[in-house]
């Protein structure tokens, strides 16, 4: 098993493109190492991207924020301004695992692990984030909701890797939130995850919204019907009911050791509502 730690995106892309067998990107390793130890994966090549500056930086760009794919959840939390603008994204990244895991886990890894239960992905999708991919044919941007196609299936081509994420500029009176359901208080994989981002007008009416649900389908969903359900409202009870119905309707979950189908659908509705209310409350004070 080879290990390489290139210091440029081009270097990493070249290694990935030239690899014969299974080549894996290493950022925080919180999924990769577990899968290797469990004999689920036996890569021939590990490409550690943490020495590449673009993957480790958090910078303002075009009024928004560019976050490197290998920035850890803990670093996001410590950033002085990011959590004020995107509290949902930051809190989602900091719900992954434990303090120790957050010291290593990254947005890039969380997305590219390809689990529909990933905590940070619904928040990124609700935020309208773009994933910037670097590959043999150069860079391209994909909305985050288009990156994960199914469990462990990504839209990345051979040699491509996620270099960074771009969170868009934020209008005034906007905010976001992320909630997940787990049976304990920490450590569990999300049984349901909900990310909501919204913008209010001066009268407190929702003018824009994005709602994303995780762990209720084969990929993390962008639920436009749920957004439509609340745009134009102040998230009063009828709007909440419409939101819940839209959330229920879109779920196609599985029965597994973490939750039943019925349970996931019920909880998706409840979480969508609770998350939207938190985002609303935050947007009012923003």
């Amino acid at each position, binding site marked *: 098993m080879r290990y390489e730690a290139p210091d440029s995106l081009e270097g990493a892309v070249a290694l990935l493109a030239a690899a014969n067998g299974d080549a894996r990107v290493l950022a925080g390793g919180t999924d990769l190492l577990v899968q290797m130890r469990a004999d689920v994966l036996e890569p021939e090549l590990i490409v550690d991207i943490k020495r590449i500056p673009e993957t480790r930086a958090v910078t303002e760009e075009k009024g928004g924020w560019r976050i490197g794919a290998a920035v850890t959840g803990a670093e996001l939390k410590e950033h002085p301004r990011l959590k004020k603008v995107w509290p949902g994204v930051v809190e989602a990244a900091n719900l992954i695992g434990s303090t120790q895991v957050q010291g290593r886990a990254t947005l890039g890894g969380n997305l590219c692990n390809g689990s529909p239960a990933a905590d940070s992905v619904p928040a990124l999708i609700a935020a309208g984030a773009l994933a910037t991919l670097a590959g043999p044919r150069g860079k391209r941007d994909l909305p985050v909701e288009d990156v994960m196609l199914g469990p462990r299936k990504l839209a990345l081509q051979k040699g491509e890797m996620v270099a960074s994420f771009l969170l868009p500029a934020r209008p005034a009176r906007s905010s976001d939130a992320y909630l997940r*359901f787990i*049976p*304990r*208080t920490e*450590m569990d994989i999300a*049984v349901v995850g909900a990310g909501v981002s919204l913008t209010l007008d001066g009268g407190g009416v929702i003018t824009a919204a994005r709602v994303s649900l995780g762990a209720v389908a084969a990929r993390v969903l962008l639920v436009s019907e749920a957004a439509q359900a609340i745009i134009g409202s102040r998230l009063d009870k009828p709007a909440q009911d419409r939101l819940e119905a839209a959330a229920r309707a879109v779920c196609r979950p599985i029965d597994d050791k973490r939750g039943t189908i019925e*349970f996931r659908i*019920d*909880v998706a509705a*409840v979480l969508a509502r609770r998350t939207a209310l938190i985002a609303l409350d935050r947007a009012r004070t923003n």
Partner: protein
Amino acid sequence: MGETNGHSQANGQHYVGTRQIRPDGADKVTGRARFGADYNLAGQLIGRVLRSPHPHARIVSIDTSKAEALPGVKAVITRQDFADQPSEFIPAGEMMMNYKDVVRNVMAREKALYEGHAVAAVAATSTAIARRALKLIDVKYEVLPHVIDVVEAMRPDAPLLHDDLFTVGVEPKPEKPSNIAKRVEIKQGDVAAGFKKADLIIEREFKTAPVHQGYIEPHAALATVSEDGSTELWTTTQGHFIVRAHCARLLGLDIGKVRVTATEIGGGFGGKTVVYLEPLAIALSKKAKRPVKMVMSREEVFKASGPTSGATVRVKMGATKDGKFVAAFAELKYQAGAFQGSPVQPGTMCAYAPYDIENVHVIGYDVVSNRPKVAAYRAPGAPISEYAVESVVDEIAKKLGLDPIELRMMNAAHEGTKAAYGPKFGPIGLEETLNSIKKTEHWNTPLRKWQGRGVASGFWFNIGGETSVSLTVNEDGTISLMAGTPDIGGLRASLASVAADELGVSYDKVRPIIGDTGSLGFNFLTGGSRSAFSGSMAIVEAAKQIKAELCARACKLWEAKPDQVEWKDGAVRPLGALAEKVKPMTIADFAKVSGKTGGPIGGVGRINAQGAGPSFGTHLVDLEVDPETGRTTILRYTVAQDAGRALHPAYVEGQFQGGAVQGIGWALNEEYVYGTDGKLQNAGFLDYRMPVASDVPMIDAILVEVGNPKHPYGVRGVGETPIVPPLGAIANAMENATGIRFTELPMSPPKVLKALKEKGLNKV
């Protein structure tokens, strides 16, 4: 009690009952302490086990040739390397072991009986080579239908695990084998007549899932076998003398030639009282002629070491309208895993033990199924049966409009009560624990909507058993104390306090260690809440010998008669007129002149400790349910338990708190999840959900001390009782919060939400 046992230092200070720093403390907080996997020997090989992927299969053939040919592989073992054992029950200490089952659990013979069952093992020069070698072993299986659930396994047409298992305890004796190994029964009075007297009868059926002890340290063993057959073994175990007995038997060795050291142990809770890796490591080392080290992965711990039973329990109780229990019946069906031996017998005995009931009848079934062989888990069998009983007691209270503590007080077992399982209780502390709970601020704090409060009591017998300790006075007056029961929770601190008080020396002058099997007489394992109880008793014996010896030496030195001297407050003291002629002599004084006055000073305590007193506990819990998701938060928790006499209050409190939190996990989230393929789906700490720090509040611990008159200090074992009440207390609190009686554990969110939905209650 609560004061000294009349023993103290010359300056009046005593250590028993105070919170000393544990003697092994510095090593434990610096990473210096050596646990099982921390031991290494030069030239050692790494051993790993090949395990069956099938829950039930005939092992047709095993071809190890390719593995043996892999460079770096030094030995491979299979069933052929273990002699078969006849089917007979042989005592190993106080346990009765059927070695025919033990040898098969350690290494499968005719069949693989659970996913994870050991089928072969290799020793190689590195972990990587050992893992590769396992992949080269070719095992041909004939897959058989499997059965997991206990009720399924009892059906006459269930897949049969053992064709020589005929149910014991039924008349007439069955002609056909089955999966029901045993039927046990206890009876007192006449329950049929009793139920006729009842104004209220409640009958309920309960179901629990298998749960694992969850120790953080996986099993580990390091063995080295010499050319003359003498064997040294380091293993993380609760009973190294038992390990020695098992290994000697399984490998045909003389007991005296096997020397076992118990390493520091990272949790056991009963799960490390049996052997898994040890016989394999020894067999590999013998074959490879090099030391062999073996450590289980977490997945192996879940798949191949014994959790406790899952069970189905039916309880029927009758009470008068005033609340007097007049009849109590229960039928317990416990899974044993692949080989017989579930804790259904103690489950049967404990079910109604907290109550004084004239008419009791409990039946229990021990049933095998295709799961890892069950191992003891803290008060084995009792949490399950007492969960069921405490739930019904709660329902009786509610239906009769009685306070749940008052109802228990009315029926509480007390001194003189004859327990349905046989003995008459001496002084016991159940009523005191109930009263303690009643007086707490916790009990009297109002609750809000969707919050619920539950109370439950529990019992465990505790045991004594064979114990050997040695006390040696060193030349400088310090004391070397060697005990033989591995310290799983702070035992050395308690024993050092006892030795210090007995001999009148300062606590820091006592150095306790856990000796290996070559250094002490037989010690039964650390379990049954016996190590502080028995160890302290044995120290008292050893100290008696030292004190008698020193009095004799004083007589020689002072030319006095025995009635002119006495041991008191840490010294041999001259009495009467003699006191004007000579001064008292302490241990340190005698140590200085030991060579000249008869030689080394020491004592041994070799006892079969009797008189263990039961420990009763009552738990109180407040919780809150989120009606929209079914999620439960534990808000507040109080434990009151009778310790008899707490040798070290902090470590006694620690037992209360640790057991309570294990109970919280068992009640709310822990369970083995099997697929229809008979394979375990959650063999890791991610999906086997034990409580984390943010899941629980502070656990308030109330130390009740109703002294055990049969122990020199009044000690009762405390380690196991704490896990008995939580299941019932939490189920009762859930009922209080939701109005729904949950009869199936764990009360995980999907189950709770479903039940709330069915009643239309899933709204805030």
